[in-house]
């Protein structure tokens, strides 16, 4: 994967348009997903996703080919989302779209559970939500998350554990608890 990424990056640096498109397609869902999770707004998330890729290609020369490409791109995405959130905090009239994604889901049990988890995520502290999304949705290991959020691994683990406990507590309050008796025997 890393060798593949390295080859793709080399082609991108030469200005090959097809390779640039391949790189965008390979990572845009991850970036967009994280942006939606952190910004709670599809249009904002798409704008930020575009900004992220512009920055990715601007600084592609500085990417360390010995490291995987995805965490590096996700670090840029985290930073852009944080900047966007800071700017949006100065525009309070734009904050009213927090549950947009959850509200648009269909109303069966699975959708209900997904909606509940998303609502729980939306209520988390931004730092907790960020590490939760990077770990459980983006599949990044603790070390890469620590680098992306610029915190020690211990802090990342603490934030993730607290995030999980808050979500679990909400699910329990809402009665979204699986039966466990026979599974443990």
């Amino acid at each position, binding site marked *: 994967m890393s060798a593949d990424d390295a080859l793709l990056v080399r082609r991108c640096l030469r200005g090959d348009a097809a390779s640039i498109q391949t790189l965008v397609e390979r990572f*845009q869902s991850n970036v967009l997903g994280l942006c939606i999770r952190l910004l709670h707004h599809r249009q904002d998330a798409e704008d930020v996703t575009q900004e992220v*890729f512009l920055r990715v290609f601007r600084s592609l020369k500085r990417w360390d080919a010995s490291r995987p490409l995805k965490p590096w791109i996700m670090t840029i995405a985290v930073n852009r989302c944080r900047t966007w959130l800071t700017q949006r905090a100065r525009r309070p009239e734009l904050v009213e779209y927090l549950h947009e994604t959850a509200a648009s889901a269909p109303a069966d049990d699975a959708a209900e*559970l*997904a909606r509940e988890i998303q609502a729980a995520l939306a209520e988390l502290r931004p730092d907790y939500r960020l590490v939760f999304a990077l770990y459980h*949705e983006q599949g990044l290991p603790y070390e890469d998350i620590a680098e992306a959020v610029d915190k020690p691994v211990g802090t990342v683990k603490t934030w993730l554990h607290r995030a*999980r406990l808050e979500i679990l507590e909400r699910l*329990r309050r809402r009665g979204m608890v699986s039966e466990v008796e026979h599974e443990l025997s």
Partner: protein
Amino acid sequence: MNCLELQGALHDVLDGGRFPPEAAAHLADCASCRELYGAAQSLTHGLTLLPRPEAAPLLTQSIVAAVLAERRRTQQVRRRIVLAVALAASVAAVLLVGWLLQTPRPDDKMIVNKALPQPEPPKLIQGAEDARTAMASLTERVAGQTKEQAKLLMSVADALELPMTNLPVLKVDEPLDPAAKSLRQATQTVASGIEPITRSARRAFTFFVNEMPMFEIPQKN
């Protein structure tokens, strides 16, 4: 295992690990932890249900177009910078060549030096000249005043029609009559008036003599 340890085990499971066997015993006895475990199972399942946002093809095209446009702009700017640097280097090279061609060689420098006017003499000489002139004019003025006073005395003497040849020789110690006293006083006044000037002139002359070795005195052949 207590409730806190079970929470730790729960995180291990959510991290992809296995649930330890002793946790089952605790769950059987602790309703709170049992609920928490059930919620964790719901979370694990629910995470697979979360919608994976798919980027619209339009977004992909928009991103790629923006990246390529920025790349073109960057290349244009880089090309302009290279052009400007090359131009500046050419101008600098032309100026350097021109300067090298105009710089006189060592032989030329000697000729140029000969053609140049002689450097100005040291300013001390000029100052000494000024001082000499000032001293001369001052002395001349005092001498003139003295001469005028002498003329005045002579005219007074003429008016009195004194026989100049038969004038008695005055002895310094002898008491003088009032008229003679005034004449001697006048002489002393003139002498005492001139004295500071003569003293200054002597001092100035000594100074010039001391400073003279600094100047080269042209020798007469």
